């Protein structure tokens, strides 16, 4: 029997009187690349913050590989890797020093070996002794993914991983995500606005609208459900329109 990587049950988070995430019920099997779509303020980042234990739910619950995010948050943190939208490392430290610091916090053994392995995986072993201060956004994003992989996580959370990257950077991050999922079996939970990226990389998607999950299914099922839609973008716009976000100009019935 396959254990689900992520399960949420009526997961809800309020900020004062505002509801950021409302009664989210979601099951993501292990080995998926899940694309979490939605407009700005839809509740995607709050959901990631809840699942990465950075935030406590107001009500409801969630588990990562059967560990409750509140009761067993320490175990959850050992199982997950997290890459925020804007990865800010310590500019005055080298890549190796940044990674060593974060690896030690994750109680990684044989830190130096692990750093070498990860940088090899990224294809940039020469970055070890370079200071992060001079890095471009794309390079930082790669180091951001490296830090999330140090402790061999089973579930990786990525918040807009390709945001602000040039086409080459987007392609490289996409390839890396595919490699991590296909070759290392890591379940990926990815917040994204890039629908073409989601269509290319994801095996399943969820669409959030004003804090509510309005659709969640495998990409194959979604595409089958809307046979007239030429792309995921059209489907997304249609779903958003159905939920009052945009006028329905998508041409999808």
């Amino acid at each position, binding site marked *: 029997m396959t254990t689900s990587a992520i399960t949420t049950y009526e997961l809800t988070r309020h*900020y004062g009187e505002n509801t950021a995430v409302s009664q989210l019920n979601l099951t993501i099997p292990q080995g998926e690349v899940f694309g979490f779509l939605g407009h700005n303020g839809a509740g995607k980042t709050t959901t990631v*913050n809840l699942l*990465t*234990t*950075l*935030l*406590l739910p107001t009500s409801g619950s969630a588990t990562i590989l059967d560990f409750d995010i509140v009761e067993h948050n*320490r175990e959850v*943190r*050992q199982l*997950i890797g*997290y890459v*925020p939208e*804007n*990865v*800010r*490392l*310590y500019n*005055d*430290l080298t890549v190796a*020093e940044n990674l060593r*610091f*974060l690896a*030690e*916090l*994750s*109680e990684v053994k044989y830190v130096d070996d692990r750093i070498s392995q990860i940088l090899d995986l990224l294809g940039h072993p020469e970055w070890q002794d370079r200071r992060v201060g001079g890095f471009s956004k794309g390079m930082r994003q790669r180091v951001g993914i490296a*830090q999330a992989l140090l*402790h061999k996580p089973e579930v990786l959370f990525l918040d807009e991983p390709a945001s602000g990257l040039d086409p080459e950077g987007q392609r490289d991050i996409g390839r890396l995500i595919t490699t991590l999922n296909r070759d290392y079996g890591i379940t990926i939970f990815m917040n994204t606005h890039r629908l073409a990226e989601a269509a290319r990389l994801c095996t399943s998607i969820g669409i959030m609208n004003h804090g509510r999950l309005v659709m969640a299914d495998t990409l194959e099922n979604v595409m089958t459900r809307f046979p007239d839609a030429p792309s995921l973008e059209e489907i997304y716009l249609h779903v958003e329109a159905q939920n009052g976000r945009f006028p329905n100009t998508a041409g999808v019935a």
Partner: protein
Amino acid sequence: MTTSLIIARKEFRTAFRNRLFLTITLLFLGLSILSVYIGSTTKRAEMRIYNETITNLQAEGAVVLPATPEIHTLTILANLVEYVSIVGAILAVILGYNSLGEERDSGGLKLILSRPVYRDQLLWGKWLGNTAVLATLLGLVFLFNSVLLVVVGGIIPTGAELLRLFVFTLMALAYLLTFLSLSIFLSLRLNSSANVFLVSLVIWMVVSFVLPQMAETQMVNSSVVNSISGAINQIPQETAVSQTINAFSPTWHLRNIGGQLLQSAPGSGSMSSGTLIAHVLTTLLILLAPTVAFIAASFTTFLRNETLVLE
């Protein structure tokens, strides 16, 4: 290694790689050279004036000669008190602001807290690391000044004098911790790191300059005749009101104990060891009190407000 120590070590390493911090540290050490040079020149000038006065009086046939002025070696370092209270305090504010305020704004705290790290471990690590940075900096200043006394001042300090300088270094650390803890606390209370820096500096200016000036207006002057020149000097005397106002100024406490330890304050040369030790312990408690209060408030704020790192 425990989590807090891992964080503390990182804080230490990043501080000594930070250009702004290194620039101010070099400024601090540069001012020490200037301080010792000015101090030793002033003392030599005082001795020269005294010797000339004695020679003139003896030539005029005077029988009663003025007593030798009390010139203590450590008075050469008297300006150190001012440099610590100004440059050191700004440095402490920058450390606290960089450590939490800026890191929170940049999202760096999220990377740490998505790992098996508890918030209290994070805060302790930050505080310990930056305390170690300030202690190292003051240790360097202590060593640097001890060497400068010999090299620039041409004076070999005694063991007792080195002990006084060391105790002053400890008092200075207690003083700087006030501003480090203040800026850490403000980093947790205010939304913008720029505001943290500004509010910390305003508070520092109020306790360092405004309060002592207010206290000065409440002092009374008494007249004292200078034994060498014969001139009448006005010496301000503390009143109950001025003492009460100064009690709220850590900077005043540092200057006060600094004057006594470095023997630049009037009457400090004749102060007994017992009285000095009592003053040192009392001042240490007074200087540490705001630090304890700010740390307690920081923990309360950080542990209660779980959305803080996400804002």
